[in-house]
């Protein structure tokens, strides 16, 4: 008996969720620029509204172009489905808002993207949702921070800014022992480098703005449900396991054994909060995903060459990249990230904030801006930009030095990037 083969990652990147348009024959995914969709008759309309049929009603809730993106990312991650959102932040908010409410509590890694940290630290408390931040490497801290009202554990596959590698299987085990799901931000790794569901995560989201889109042209997010978490057995999530008056008394877990979370997120979260993605954005991100395997391979290859160069430079004090033996998560990275640790990393330049500014201003290929994951190489000097109001002591607490430079390595010829960096290092010396 020949065992059947499922499509592999590179093929899914091109085909999952999409086939030639049956009406026009269009091979590429059409952009369905329409707010709404005509019902075949009154019964069809009622059936769509009552979830007796699948289909599109209104593009805030679903759209055919977005559906291709959602199904493709779900296929690449190994999940049961996904929801495309207006941004990565919208995806995070949707995940939290679907299962948490006033009085809920979250345990999160303290090594988070600044926007996520702000949401959890300052914004959600206004709505009654509190977060305890823990050192992501401290498993006892994760466990110890869980309270009776905790709804979620949350971390990034590669933390910010030090690229702390999340020990997904260990943190997932802690979450599951407490009957809680683990949510992971996988933006820096993409499913090409790491599939969090394979290691026990239950929910994954991306800022699709970054490597999934890959070209710096569109803001978007994707929230993926792994379909693994048993909400009913947990007993902590009546939002998913008891009738919901806001949607025909639906018990989402009864409707779908494996996708109750996504059903509620779409039927409530997208409907009521409305942070949907434009189909034009979905198309642009799909274009990026078609070449995701090729790009991620090249991103990592270039990053390794740049790091090898920087490691030999006297002006460079340290480099934070988990493939380096000096990184505290080196062993874990070797196990979780054999294809590479991504293309975003920080290094410390010898000298003060002024040296950092001179370095940035001497670069010609690297673009000085606040983003990562573009096909083009990017750079930022946190001490003079995103964190300029902070004292050196406060910066140190956040893991940022006056000379810390963050690079996002693009797809250019690596020798050109190295030459650009060499010029900037010379300039930094003053």
């Amino acid at each position, binding site marked *: *008996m020949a*065992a*059947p*083969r*499922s*499509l592999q990652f590179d093929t*899914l990147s091109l*085909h*999952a*969720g*999409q*086939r030639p348009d049956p009406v026009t024959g269009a091979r590429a995914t059409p952009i369905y620029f329409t707010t709404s969709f005509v019902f075949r008759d009154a019964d069809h309309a*009622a*059936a769509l509204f*009552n*979830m*007796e*049929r*699948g*289909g*599109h009603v209104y593009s805030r809730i*679903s*759209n*055919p172009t*977005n*559906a*291709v993106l*959602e*199904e493709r990312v*779900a*296929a690449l991650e*190994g*999940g*049961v*489905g*996904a*929801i*495309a959102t207006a941004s990565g932040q919208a995806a995070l908010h949707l995940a939290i808002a679907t299962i948490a409410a006033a009085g809920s509590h979250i345990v999160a890694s303290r090594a988070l993207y600044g926007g996520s940290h702000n949401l959890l630290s300052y914004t959600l408390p206004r709505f009654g949702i509190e977060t305890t931040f823990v050192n992501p490497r401290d498993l006892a801290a994760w466990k110890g921070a869980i309270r009776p009202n905790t709804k979620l554990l949350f971390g990034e596959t590669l933390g910010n800014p030090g690229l702390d590698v999340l020990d997904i299987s260990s943190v997932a085990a802690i979450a599951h022992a407490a009957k809680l799901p683990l949510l992971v931000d996988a933006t820096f790794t993409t499913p090409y480098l790491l599939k969090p569901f394979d290691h026990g995560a239950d929910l994954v989201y991306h800022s699709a703005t970054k490597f999934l889109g890959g070209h710096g042209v569109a803001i978007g997010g994707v929230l993926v449900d*792994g*379909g*693994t978490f*048993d909400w009913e057995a947990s007993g902590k999530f009546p939002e998913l396991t008891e009738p919901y008056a806001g949607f*025909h*008394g*639906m018990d989402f877990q*009864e*409707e*779908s*054994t*494996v*996708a109750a979370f*996504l*059903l509620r997120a*779409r039927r409530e979260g997208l409907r009521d909060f409305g942070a949907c993605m434009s189909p034009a954005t979905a198309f642009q991100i799909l274009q990026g995903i078609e070449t995701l395997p090729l790009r991620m391979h090249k991103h990592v290859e270039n990053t390794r060459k740049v790091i090898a160069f920087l490691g030999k430079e006297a002006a460079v004090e340290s480099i934070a990249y988990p493939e380096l033996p000096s990184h505290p998560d080196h062993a874990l990275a070797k196990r979780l990230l054999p294809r590479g640790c991504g293309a975003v990393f920080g290094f410390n330049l010898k000298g003060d904030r002024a040296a950092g500014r001179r370095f940035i201003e001497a670069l010609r290929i690297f673009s000085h801006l606040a983003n990562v994951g573009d096909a083009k190489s990017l750079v930022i000097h946190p001490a003079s930009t995103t964190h300029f109001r902070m004292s050196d002591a406060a910066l140190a607490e956040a893991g940022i030095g006056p000379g810390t430079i963050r690079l996002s390595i693009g797809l250019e010829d690596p020798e050109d990037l190295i030459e650009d960096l060499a010029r900037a290092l010379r300039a930094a010396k003053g």
Partner: protein
Amino acid sequence: MELRIANDAAYAYTGGKTLDANLPAVVFIHGGEQDHSVWALQSRYLAHHGYAVLAVDLPGHGKSGGAPLASIEDMAGWIVALLDAAKVNAAALIGHSMGSLVALECAARNPQRVSRIALLGTAFPMRVSPDLLQATKTRESDAHGMINAWSHSGYAHYPSNPGPGFWVIGGNLRLMQRQKPGVLHADFAACDGYKTGFERAAQVKCPALFLLGARDAMTPARAGRDLARAVPNSTVVTLGSAGHNLMGEKPDEVLEALVEFLRAS
């Protein structure tokens, strides 16, 4: 709704409505290593269109207690017990794959309790290759992968199931993984061990719909048509470009075929 059958909990999804046993009843019977949720759209639609719906979790599956039953005959007996427990006199039975054999067996043995049968993704004999049967016993994860790959005809589904944005292939895999260890082998052994399909088919008195996938690699459509020829009052509908997971891949077409079949009574 939750019932008790032979001292075990028996779960049946009623389509989001309270069961009204005075309405024409429809029982949905899932395939091996699955549960009621494979019928989510079709069962919910019928429940809101004048039918009393019972989409069951067979013993040992989903939310039902007990151990998986060892034979198709035992499962057919359990369906009758379910009708008794729900106080339903007679019902149309809609079964998929293993569930289709259960519906066939049940209709042949209980003509007074079964008004019609719809068999989806069906075949007789429903043999399981020795390699796959062994894998269901000793390598469940590998077996899940093989079954999932064989069960789907493509990598893009419209309008997907249960709706846009759901990855049908991933959902089917996770649903299998949710069942308890041992259920997969028990189910596939029951299918493999069912020997009386043609005899039972000849005994079926009620109308029968055979809903087949043209690209079904688990239960090829030609094998379904062979079985259909043995049922005196049968109709065959073949869905082009559908694989074994017809409800996931072609939810609207499946629904429309079922609605037309049920309305014909």
